[in-house]
Structures are given as C-alpha cells and as structure tokens.
C-alpha cells in the first residue's frame, strides 16, 4: 500500500515536472520572441527617427559635382559681368589603354595644333593609369576630339573661370589658375568670399564704361606718343571707390599662361615713379595747413635760387615774382623749393605719411607697391620731394592723396569694392577745409591759365596739375631724354568728386608737340579726352557754376 502510494506520488511529481518544463520552455520562447520583436521595433523606430530627424543634409551629398565646385561671379558696379564659372571638358588619357601613342599624339596635334607632339607622346607612353592632356575644352572642341574615336582618351567635366570682357579691366579682375584658385587681382583678393557656400556675386567699384574709355584713350596715347606703357586711375574721392584703373599693355585673363609676362604688370598700382610736379599742390597745401606761407606773398622765382650749393632749375622761368597760385600755375620749382624749406623735413614727412605716400596703398588688392623713400631726408631731399623728385610712389597712391586734399581735406582709403550705403566710407582729416578749398581754386587756375590748359573740358570744371620727371640714369643722376609724364586731375570744380591720373612712361615728342614730350603736351590732353568721354556718364561730374560763370562773362 505504502509502495503503491509512493509510486503514485512519484508519477504525479514526474508529470508536474514535465508540465513545468514545457511551460518554462514556452515562456522562454515567448520571451525570446518578445525580445526579438522589441529589438526589431527599436530598429524601426531608430530608422524612422533617422529618416525624419537626422537626414536633413543628406540631399547635399547627392548634388551634382558642378554645384559644389562653383565660384561666385564678379561684376562691375552696375552688375555687368566680369568673371563667371562655366562647365568645360578636360581631356585625359589612360595610357595603358592607348593602343598607339604615336598615332594618337599625331591625331590630337592635327586637331589641336598648339599641343606639342613630343610631349604628348611621352605622356601617352607613360606607365600610368591617368594623365591630363588638355583642360578647359568647349563642348564643340570636346566633340571634335570625341569624333576622332581614339581609345584610351576620355573627358571629365570641370568648372572653368571665364572672363567675357577679355582684356578690359584684366589687371583689376585678375585671374585664377587651372585649379580655380585666384592668383591675381580681385580673384585673389576676394578668394575666401568667392568660394564660400552659396556666395553671392561680388560687385567691384569699377564702372565698365569708364574703364573702357580710360583704357581706350591710354592705348591710343601709348601708340601716338610711342610710350613704353601708359596707365591711369579714376577714383571717387568721397567713397574711395576706384571707378577705373588701367595699364596698357594689358592681357587676356582667359589665357594668362600664353601672355607676355610684362603685360601682367599693373603699372598704376605696382610701379613707382618720381612723378614730378604733380606733387606741388601737396606742398602748397602743407604750407597753408602749417601757416608758413599765404596766398598774398610773392616769391622771387625770377632770380637764380640755390639750395646747398645746387641751383634749382625752372624749365620756363618767370620774369616776375609769383604768388602761390602763380607758382603752381607756372610749375615753378624755385617757388616750391622756397615753400618746402619753410615746411621742413619733419612736417613734410608727417603730411606725406598722413596722405598715405610713405606706405603702400592699403586697399584690397595684393598688387600695391611700396614707395621708394630716401634713407637720408635732409634739406635737399625736402626740396626735391616738394616737386616730386626723390620719392617714388605709385600713380594710385598719388591719386588717393590728391583726392584726400580736394575732398574737403579728408583722405579716404581707395577700395575696389562697390561702396555700400549701409557702411559709409571712413576717412581721416589731412588738411583743413579752407586749405582744401584754396587748393581746389589753385588747381582750377592751373587748367584755365597754367600748364594744364589742354585738359580744360568745358562744363566739368576740371582742376589739375602737370608733372614731368626725368627717369634715373643708369650712370647716376637723371636722364633728360627718358621722361615720365603725368597729369593729375579732379572735377567738378564746384563740388570735387572725382580724381584721376594719367601717366605715360617715356613718351616721345611728335609732330604737333613742337619737340616737347612734357606732360602739358601729352598727359594733359589724354586726361582731357578721358574726362570728355566719362563726364556725361558719371553722376555729379558736371560743374554747377560753369554756365553761371559763362553768363557772367567768364569763359569756363
């Protein structure tokens, strides 16, 4: 009995164990299933979250390559296109797949004659998987190469910088290298702004119409007077904007590699010259500012004048004493020397520093030469610098200085970016207002009655000053036959707004100049021609008082 009871109990226990195990296994399976399900659910949730929340910029990866490699456009102040980026085709070869390098090179040279056959063949024979053959092909050129059906040649789409205005404003715009990095001009100066994501186009300060007029007149003058080069600047003296800056010969920025190296040089900003008498208005302003001379005083310029045992020479000596306006109008070195001695070396340097003539022009472009300053600045240097010898500066630097003098005495640093109303130009006072007004009238006198008469364009109240300087001789001293002639001008007289300069390097005397190659005979008329063309274009260029004067019997 006991045994059977025991057996029964044991059987029940065994059954209970099996049921428990089965249930336990079932539970484990369910738990595994739940874990798997929850895991999958989590994956789904994470994926959903990734799609909806974290993939906002994923589409950028899918943008075409060209969009990411673009470079913002450059325009002039009126939105006229100066530089843009276009898609071009670059030809490359996979030399290992080229069947016959010699034949391939021959066919390519036949189609693209500027390529060198030997160099091309060497590239095609190289044990490499990739070599560039030519970059920047137009769609038409690409098709022509494609039609040759040569194996191993292929094309890659690449952006290329294009300059539709070609030579016009080439020095200011600059150019990029084959990898689209700016290497000169605005392309180099504004590199960071141009390559930024979604960068807007950059408007330069220049006006293409004014640039063309200036370049055209300079090119004509260079040819007419057989000059080595000619350069010029037109500047808005209130904002510092460079409206035009040209140097001829110039170059085509679409082909910078094939151009003559000397044409790449922007003489207006990179060449320093002893500019001669165009410095005299600055000397007059310094004297008036410091109160060491006044307009009523007469200077005895008719007599020989010596400084440190050296005679100061006047090309056309006056027979009578002259006041300051007369000294400027007759461009008397003697009168200017007398005034400079009163100013003294220290004050002269102080003023020149304020006018930015002892340092490079601090504008955006890298093309800006340092002035050449004398190491020993004694009395003789003070005298020679007063009439523009012994201190070599760029035409751009002098234009800015003259502009500062005539802009109510406020110097504004030049800029090649279009002026924004939101950020007004900041200037620094270099001369008093009354001094500035005196110089406005004195420089007007130079054009109406002095050496700059050939630049007198009716209606624009042109002010100016001629400057003729001899170039340093290789044997020491100066060479009388090699001249640099300049004319610095400003207009209108009633409310000066624009300053400009024209500089000719080694102009020659021609028929009609009576054997002279001085600024009054070449640079001044060229500046006049430029003003005649740009006056009607530029806002605020017309002189208000011209017709009023005419009515009052004063010929403008």
């Amino acid at each position: 009995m006991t045994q059977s009871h025991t057996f029964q109990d044991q059987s029940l226990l065994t059954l209970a164990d099996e049921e428990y195990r089965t249930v336990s296994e079932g539970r484990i399976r369910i738990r595994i299933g739940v874990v798997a399900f929850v895991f999958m659910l989590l994956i789904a949730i994470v994926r959903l979250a990734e799609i909806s929340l974290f993939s906002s910029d994923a589409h950028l990866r899918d943008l075409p390559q060209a969009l990411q490699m673009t470079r913002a456009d450059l325009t002039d102040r009126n939105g006229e296109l100066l530089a843009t980026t276009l898609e071009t085709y670059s030809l490359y070869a996979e030399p290992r797949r080229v069947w016959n390098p010699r034949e391939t090179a021959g066919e390519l040279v036949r189609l693209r004659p500027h390529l060198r056959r030997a160099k091309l063949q060497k590239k095609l024979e190289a044990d490499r998987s990739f070599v560039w053959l030519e970059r920047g092909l137009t769609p038409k050129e690409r098709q022509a190469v494609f039609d040759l059906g040569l194996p191993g040649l292929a094309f890659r789409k690449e952006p290329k910088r294009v300059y539709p205005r070609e030579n016009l404003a080439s020095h200011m715009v600059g150019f990029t290298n084959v990898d689209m990095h700016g290497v000169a001009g605005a392309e180099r100066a504004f590199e960071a702004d141009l390559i930024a994501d979604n960068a807007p186009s950059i408007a330069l300060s220049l006006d293409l119409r004014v640039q063309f007029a200036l370049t055209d007149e300079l090119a004509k003058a260079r040819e007419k007077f057989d000059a080595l080069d000619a350069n010029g600047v037109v500047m808005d003296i209130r904002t510092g904007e460079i409206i035009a800056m040209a140097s001829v010969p110039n170059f085509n920025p679409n082909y910078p590699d094939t151009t003559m190296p000397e044409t790449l040089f922007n003489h207006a900003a990179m060449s320093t010259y002893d500019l001669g008498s165009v410095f005299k208005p600055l000397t007059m302003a310094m004297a008036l500012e410091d109160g060491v001379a006044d307009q009523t005083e007469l200077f005895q310029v008719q007599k020989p004048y010596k400084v440190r045992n050296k005679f100061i020479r006047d090309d056309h000596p006056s027979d009578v004493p002259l006041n300051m306006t007369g000294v400027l109008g007759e461009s008397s070195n003697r009168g200017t020397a007398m005034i400079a001695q009163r100013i003294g070396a220290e004050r002269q340097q102080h003023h020149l520093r304020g006018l930015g003539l002892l340092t490079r022009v601090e504008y955006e472009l890298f093309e800006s030469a340092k002035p050449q300053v004398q190491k020993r600045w004694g009395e003789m240097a003070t005298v020679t610098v007063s009439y523009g010898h012994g201190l070599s500066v760029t035409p751009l630097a002098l234009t800015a200085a003259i502009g500062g003098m005539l802009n109510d005495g406020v110097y504004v640093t030049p800029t090649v970016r279009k002026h924004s109303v939101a950020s007004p130009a900041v200037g620094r006072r270099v001369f008093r207002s009354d001094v500035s007004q005196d110089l406005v009238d004195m420089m007007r006198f130079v054009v109406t009655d002095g050496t700059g008469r050939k630049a007198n364009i009716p209606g624009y109240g042109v002010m100016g000053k001629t400057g003729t300087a001899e170039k340093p001789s290789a044997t020491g001293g100066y060479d009388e036959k090699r001249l640099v002639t300049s004319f610095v001008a400003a207009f209108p007289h009633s409310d000066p707004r624009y300053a400009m300069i024209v500089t000719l390097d080694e102009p020659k005397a021609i028929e009609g100049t009576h054997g002279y190659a001085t600024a009054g005979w070449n640079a001044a008329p060229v500046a006049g021609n430029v003003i005649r063309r740009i006056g009607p274009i530029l806002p605020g260029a017309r002189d208000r008082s011209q017709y009023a004067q005419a009515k009052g019997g004063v010929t403008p």
Partner: protein
Amino acid sequence: MSVSYSGSARAARRMSWFLLFLIGVALTVTLYFVKTHAQSAKRDVRDLSGAIAAEEAAIRVLRAELAYLESPMRLSELNEGHLKLKSILPEHERALRDIELIFPLTAEEEK
C-alpha cells in the same frame, strides 16, 4: 513555481500579444512605405537639383555670351566698321537747370 492563469486572463494575454504583433506588422509596413517614399522624394530632389544645376549652367553660359557680345571693346570695333556712331560728348548734354541760362527768355516771353 508555476503561475496559473484563469481562462479570461489567458485570453486577454493572448489578445495583447496579438495586438502587439499587429502593431509590429503595421509599423513594419509603415516603415516600408515611409522609406520608399523618402527614397522616391530623395530621387526627385536629386533629379530636380540636377535639372536646376543644368539650367543654371545654361544661364551662366548665356550670361557669359551676352557679356562677350556686349563688351565695349567689341561693340566699338563693330561700330567703327559699320555704324560709325559717335559718343555723347559734354557739348551734347545740358542740365535742366541750365536751360534758362542757355536759352534766356526774351523780354516778350517774360511778359
């Protein structure tokens, strides 16, 4: 130690699991459609971006061509060869305020 469930509790438990399963299936299907839609939208964006880029490239080419054709140097050469038009010079323009000075009213007109 085994846990015993009553009949109704077991049914509720089974229903919960079933509902959870249905939710899982529904989520999976939704995910599939969302993903498909997202991929499709992505493709559309890519196509549109490509089309925009192509249009922009074409516009850039046209702008460059226009700039070349309108280049003052080129127009000047063409003008010299064909039209021989002259520039506007200072003597051709007059300010409005100067008209009275240039063309003064006669005594009769002033009356």
